[in-house]
């Protein structure tokens, strides 16, 4: 259970960054931290004590294996996170070109 709590604490560090930092780059990094901890939480759920990874090999008896379902879902989720990071970075670059700053307290006007 302590592992779950620590994983949630990592998520809250990401929330803290999003709420208090004034720098766009640090906000992007904070969303990354939140993504990491969400993925890790799902995999923590899948772990079974004394089990091995779910890959079969010839001539070996099937022992207890960990849950393959969350692993399969997280695998694609990690890749999607990369796409999201790239999109956030693109938005940040556009904002920088317009306002010449990454400080979000100075980005106030919304005009096209």
């Amino acid at each position: 259970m302590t592992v779950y709590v620590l994983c949630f604490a990592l998520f809250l560090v990401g929330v803290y960054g999003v709420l208090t930092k004034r720098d766009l780059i640090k906000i992007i990094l904070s969303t990354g931290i939140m993504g990491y901890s969400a993925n890790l939480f799902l995999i923590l759920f899948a772990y079974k004590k004394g089990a091995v990874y779910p890959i079969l090999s010839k001539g070996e008896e099937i022992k207890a294996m960990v849950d393959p379902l969350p692993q399969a879902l997280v695998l694609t989720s990690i890749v999607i996170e990369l796409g999201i990071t790239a999109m956030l970075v693109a938005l940040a670059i556009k904002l920088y070109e317009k306002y010449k700053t990454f400080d979000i307290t100075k980005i106030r006007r919304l005009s096209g």
Partner: protein
Amino acid sequence: MPVETWLLFILSYMIVGSIVALELKNILASIVSIGIVGLGVSISFLFLQAPDLAIVQFLFEIFALIILVRAFAKREYHEEKAARVSGVMYFITVIVLVAVLVVSIPVFRALPPFGDPIMWVANYYLKNGAAETGSANLVTSVILDYRAYDTLGEVTVLFTAILGALTILKVRSKKEEREEDEDE
């Protein structure tokens, strides 16, 4: 040492590392030290018996570092001041987040204990996966056979995100275009 002890160690290390990365003044150091969290997640995946995920996470970390450094390294950077909220609000934010953590502990107690998952669906996959799909790696058999429609949807999301990023970078506002026309 049992797996749980290792995980506790790595997770505390990652929490400290992420706080340090967010509080550093130099933005390049901040981007690099966020790698503590990503590579820590990768090592945790190895301990949790998910080798494919560990490799993907490692690659993700490298690519994210390249994208972030390439995008932000050359730009003129402002001096970072204190947090964007005032002193009182800052403390209220921290206290509320800690309170959320403390209040949520009973929720984690209600979850199945660590190392003892509910495997209703997974037992079917583990028993019949190799015979039905012919794949030795059962994670692959879930991704590409049992949950192939999910994977298709996720690939669509990834494609849309990359398309969005390219569109945002390419599009220019009308004002800029007009200015360029006037220059010509």
